[in-house]
C-alpha cells in the first residue's frame, strides 16, 4: 500500500500499476503539509491548485494510455530559488516578495515535461546564503528530528519536507553544501551533481561559478531517478555540459562495490569533528569494506585553504549577481515618494530588502573585487581553486571515489550560531571543496550520533562527469546499512502530531 512514507520509486510503481492516482497521492501530501508544516515550516508557498491540476493531467494522460516518464505523477518540493512561471519565487528574501517570474527555469520545464507534480516552494536561507535557514526573511525551518534544531541550509526547507514526509522528492541547490548539509542533518539523501550537469537557467544566482541544482530524496535510487529528469545539456546555459548524462539510475541499482577503491580524505576528519559523527562515518567505511571495496587514505593538503577562498569567490560573485535587485523593474520598492531620486530609492530598497547575512557577503565581495585588492583576494582565491582541482586529480588517481563525513557535527540548535558567522561557515568545511573544484558529491545518512540521537551524513565525492560512481557507492552503502540496521534511518524519526 502506497502512502506518504513510501519511496518515489514505490509511488511510481503504484501509479503505473493503477493502485493509486496522482491526484490521490498529491492530496495525501497536501494533507500532510497541512497537518505538520505549521511546525516544520518547510514551505514558503504551497501551490495546491496547480499541483492538483498537474496531477489530474498526468492521471488523464495515463488513462489515455500515453507513455509517461517514471516520475510522472509523483509530487515534489521545489526550492524557492528556482523560477516557476506565475508562482511566487522569493529566494527567502523580502526583496522578491510577491514576484512571480514570467518564465520557467529549465529545471522546472524538465520537471513539468516529466509530469512531476510541483507541490510548492520551500524555505531557504536568503539567496541561498547560510547553513540553517535562519537567514530566511520568512522565519526558519525546523528540523523534523528535533524542532528546536536547524534543518541545515540553505536548502533546509527541501530537506525538512522530505524528512517530514511532506514530499518524496525535492530540488535543492548547492553552492557550498546547501543540498548535502541539510540532507546530512535531516537523515535524507542529497546530491550535488557535477557543475554543469543541471542547467542553471532560471536558478537565481548566488555564486554563478559554484551554484548547482540537484536532486534530494529519502533514498539513493529516488535521487538518481530525479537526477535523470533534471540533468542534461541546455543551450540556455553556456556553462552546461554538452555530453550524455551518466547512467545514474543503473548505477544506483548495481548494489556492488567489489574492487572499487574508496579514498578517505585525511583532511576531512579528526579535529573539529563530533565524536559520534566520526564513529558513524567509520562504521560506514567498514560496511563498504565488508561489501568488497578497498579503502585507501588520500591527502588533499590544500583543502585547508578552501573555506577562505570560498568566502572570497562566492561573495564576490554574489555582490555582482545581487546588484540587479534595485527596485527598478520588479520586487520590493522602498521610499518612492515621488521626490526621492532613483539612486535614493535603490539605496533604501537594498537597505530594507536584504538581510544581515546577504549584506555581509555583498560588502565582503565588493571589497574583494575592489581595484588594488583584486589580485590579493579574488585572484589568489582563484589560484586556490586550481590547487584544489589538482588535489582532487591526485586523489582520484588513487581512488575511484572519495569519502568523508558531510558535516563536522549533527544539527545544532536554532539560534546557537546566528551571532557567530565563522562558526556557521565552518559547517561547510567538508562540502565546500567539492563546489570549488566543480565535481559531484552526495550525502546519505549513515546513522544517528550516539550522543544526541541525530542523523549523521556520509559524503561520497566522484570525479567530474562521473556522477554514476557516487550513485553506485551510495546505493550499495545504503543497502548495506539498512541491512545492518534492519530498517531505514527515517523509520526512527519522531512522528509529528498535527495541531
Amino acid at each position, binding site marked *: 500500500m502506497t502512502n506518504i512514507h513510501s519511496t518515489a520509486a514505490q509511488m511510481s510503481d503504484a501509479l503505473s500499476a493503477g493502485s493509486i492516482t496522482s491526484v490521490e497521492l498529491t492530496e495525501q501530501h497536501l494533507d500532510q503539509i497541512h497537518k505538520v508544516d505549521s511546525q516544520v515550516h518547510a514551505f514558503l508557498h504551497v501551490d495546491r491548485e496547480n499541483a492538483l491540476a498537474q496531477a489530474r493531467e498526468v492521471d488523464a494522460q495515463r488513462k489515455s494510455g500515453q507513455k509517461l516518464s517514471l516520475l510522472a505523477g509523483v509530487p515534489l518540493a521545489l526550492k524557492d530559488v*528556482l*523560477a516557476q512561471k506565475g508562482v511566487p*519565487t522569493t*529566494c527567502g528574501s523580502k526583496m*522578491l516578495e510577491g*514576484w512571480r*517570474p*514570467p*518564465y520557467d*527555469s529549465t529545471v522546472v520545464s524538465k520537471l513539468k515535461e516529466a509530469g512531476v507534480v510541483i507541490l510548492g516552494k520551500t524555505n531557504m536561507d536568503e539567496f541561498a546564503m547560510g547553513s540553517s535557514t535562519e537567514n530566511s526573511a520568512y522565519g526558519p525551518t525546523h528540523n523534523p528530528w528535533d524542532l528546536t534544531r536547524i534543518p541545515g541550509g540553505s536548502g533546509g526547507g527541501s530537506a525538512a519536507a522530505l524528512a517530514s514526509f511532506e514530499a518524496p522528492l525535492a530540488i535543492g541547490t548547492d553552492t557550498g553544501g546547501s543540498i548535502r548539509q541539510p540532507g546530512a542533518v535531516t537523515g535524507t539523501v542529497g546530491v550535488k551533481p557535477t557543475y554543469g550537469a543541471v542547467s*542553471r*537557467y*532560471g*536558478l*537565481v*544566482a548566488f*555564486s*554563478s*561559478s559554484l551554484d548547482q541544482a540537484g536532486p534530494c530524496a529519502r533514498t539513493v535510487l529516488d535521487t538518481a531517478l530525479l537526477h535523470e529528469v533534471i540533468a542534461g545539456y541546455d*543551450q*540556455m*546555459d*553556456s*556553462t552546461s555540459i554538452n555530453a550524455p548524462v551518466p547512467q545514474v539510475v543503473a548505477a544506483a541499482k548495481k548494489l556492488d562495490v567489489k574492487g572499487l577503491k574508496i579514498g578517505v580524505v585525511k583532511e576531512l576528519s579528526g579535529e573539529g569533528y563530533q565524536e559520534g559523527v566520526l564513529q558513524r562515518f567509520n562504521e560506514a567505511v567498514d560496511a563498504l569494506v565488508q561489501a568488497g571495496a578497498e579503502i585507501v587514505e588520500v591527502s588533499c593538503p590544500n583543502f585547508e585553504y578552501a573555506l577562505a577562498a570560498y568566502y572570497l569567490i562566492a561573495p*564576490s*560573485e554574489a*555582490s*555582482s549577481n545581487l*546588484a*540587479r*535587485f*534595485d527596485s*527598478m*523593474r*520588479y520586487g520590493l520598492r522602498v521610499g518612492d515618494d515621488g521626490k526621492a*531620486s*532613483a*539612486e535614493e530609492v*535603490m539605496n533604501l530598497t537594498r537597505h530594507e530588502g536584504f538581510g544581515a547575512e546577504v549584506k555581509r557577503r555583498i560588502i565582503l565581495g*565588493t571589497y574583494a*573585487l*575592489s*581595484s588594488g585588492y*583584486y589580485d590579493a583576494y*579574488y585572484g589568489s582565491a582563484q589560484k586556490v581553486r586550481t590547487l584544489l582541482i589538482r588535489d582532487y586529480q591526485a586523489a582520484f588517481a588513487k581512488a575511484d571515489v572519495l569519502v568523508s563525513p558531510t558535516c563536522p557535527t549533527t544539527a545544532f540548535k536554532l539560534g546557537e550560531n546566528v551571532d557567530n558567522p565563522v562558526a556557521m561557515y565552518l559547517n561547510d568545511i567538508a562540502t565546500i571543496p567539492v563546489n570549488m573544484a566543480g565535481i559531484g558529491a552526495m550525502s546519505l545518512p549513515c546513522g544517528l550520533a550516539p550522543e544526541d540521537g541525530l542523523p549523521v551524513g556520509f559524503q561520497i565525492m566522484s570525479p567530474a562527469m562521473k556522477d554514476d560512481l557516487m550513485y553506485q557507492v551510495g546505493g550499495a552503502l545504503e543497502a548495506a546499512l539498512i541491512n545492518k540496521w534492519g530498517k531505514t534511518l527515517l523509520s526512527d524519526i519522531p512522528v509529528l502530531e498535527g495541531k
Partner: protein
Amino acid sequence: MTLTYDQAVIKYEPTLGLEVHVELNTKSKMFCGCATEFGAEPNTQTCPICLGLPGALPVVNGRAIESTILIGLALNCQIAPFSRFARKNYFYPDMPKNFQTSQYDEPICVNGYLDVEIDTDEGKMPFRVEIERVHMEEDTGKSLHVGGETGRIHGADYSLLDYNRAGIPLVEIVTKIIPGAKKYAPQVARAYVTELRDILRSLGVSDVKMEQGSMRCDVNLSLAIAGSGALGTRSETKNVNSLRSVERAVIGEIIRQSNRLETGERIIQETRHFLEESGLTRPGRSKEQAEDYRYFPEPDLVPVVPDAAWIETLRGQLPERPSARRKRLQTEWSVPDKEMDSLLNAELLDVVEETIALGAEPARARSWWLGEVSRLANEREVAPTSLITAASIAEVIVLIESGELTDKLARQVIEGVIAGEGSAKEVIEKRGLKVISDDGALTKAIESAIAASPDTAERVRSGNIPAAGALIGAVMKSTGGQADAAKVRELLLKHLGQG
C-alpha cells in the same frame, strides 16, 4: 588675450585618443534572441535575459563574435586565441543587471592600425592611427528624463526607461594615443572615423548611422607644450555624433584647453559633452576619482576560443579596403581629385558605382548624381540616394547616350520618377517625352519657322550662320523641346543651303 586655434597649435601639441562604439547589425541581441530593430515601441524587444530577470543567463551570439573578428582583421589586429567577457559593475537604472557584460583585460582583438590620408600644406599625406583593442560588449537601455531644464537625470521629475536597446551587441574600438598629428589633429580624427565607418560599412557588420547612434565616438584630447614630449591631462568628450562634429570637438577642446593653460589653470580629467550648436563642450562627471568598476571574469559565459582555421576563412572573406577601392575607382573612371572629393563628401560613391555597373557612362553617371539629383535632393533636404535609384538614373543615361532623350527631357523623366509616376520608361510613355527623330516631322517644323521669319532665313541663306540660332530656338519651342538641337541645326542649315 585668448589664443585662436592657429596660435594654440603652435604653442601646444595635441594628443588624441578615439573610442568608437559601434552597434552591430545582428538580427538578435548579444546574449539573447530578442530583435534589434531600431525605433520599435519601447520595451517590446525584451525578454527575461536582456531585462536581467533573476535566474536568466546570457548566451553569446556567434554572429556578433564573427563580426567582431572581421572588424579586428580589417583593422590589422591580432585575434586573441583566448579571450573572455568580464563584468563591469556599476549601478544605473537603464542597466538591467547593474553590471555591463563587456571585455576587460582579455579583449578579442588587439594591436592593429588604420592608415588614413590627410590634406597637409605639402599635399595629401598618409597618417597611421594605431589601434589598442577591439572588444565586445552589450549596450544599455535608454533613459528619457522628463521635466527639469536640462533633460538630464539631475532635476528631472521622473524618468522613462526603454530596454529595447539593452543587450544590443556593441563593439568598442579604441585607438592607442595618437601623437604627432599637430595642427592636423582635427583632420586626423575625422579621417580616422570616416575611414573606420567606411570599413565597417564595407564589412556589412553595422548600419554605422551616427545620427541614429549606431556609431558613437568619444574624443579624448590632451595638450602639452610643443616639443616638451610630455603628456597632458585629458578630457573625454562623449557621444560626438557626426563626422563634422568629431572635427569640431577636437578644435573646440584644443581652444578650450589651451586657453585654460594660458591662464594658469589646470585641465581637469573629466567627461565632457559635445554641444552640437556651438561646437563647444560642457563638463560632465569628473573622473578625478577613478570609478571602480570591480571588473571580474563573467562566470556565466565560457571563454571565447576561436578556431585558427575559422579566422583564416574570415580573413579570406574581407572585402576590398575602402581606401583602395576609392583609388581604383578614381583611376577607372578617370575622375579629377576635386570631383572625387565632391563624390565622397556627398556620399555618392556607392550609388555612382552602381549606376555605372548598370551600363551608364562614368562621366555622365557622376555628373547626373552630383548635378541634377543632388540639386533636387537639396531642395527637399534629403539624401540624393533616398530620392531615386541607381537603376532609374542608369536607364535615363542609357537613353541619353542612344539619343532617345535630350538632357532637358531627361530632367523631366527624373522629375516624373521622383514624383512617383512610375519607372523611367513609364514616365516617358505617359508624358510622351521622346526625341523627335523623324526627319519629316522636323522638316515640317523647320519650314514653319522659316515661313514665320523670312528675313532671318534670308540672312542665314546669305551666309550669316549665327542668325540660325533664332530659327533653331523657334523649332525647339514648337516641338516642345523634344527635338535634338544638333539635328535641328543640321537640317535647318541644309534647308537654307548652308549644309
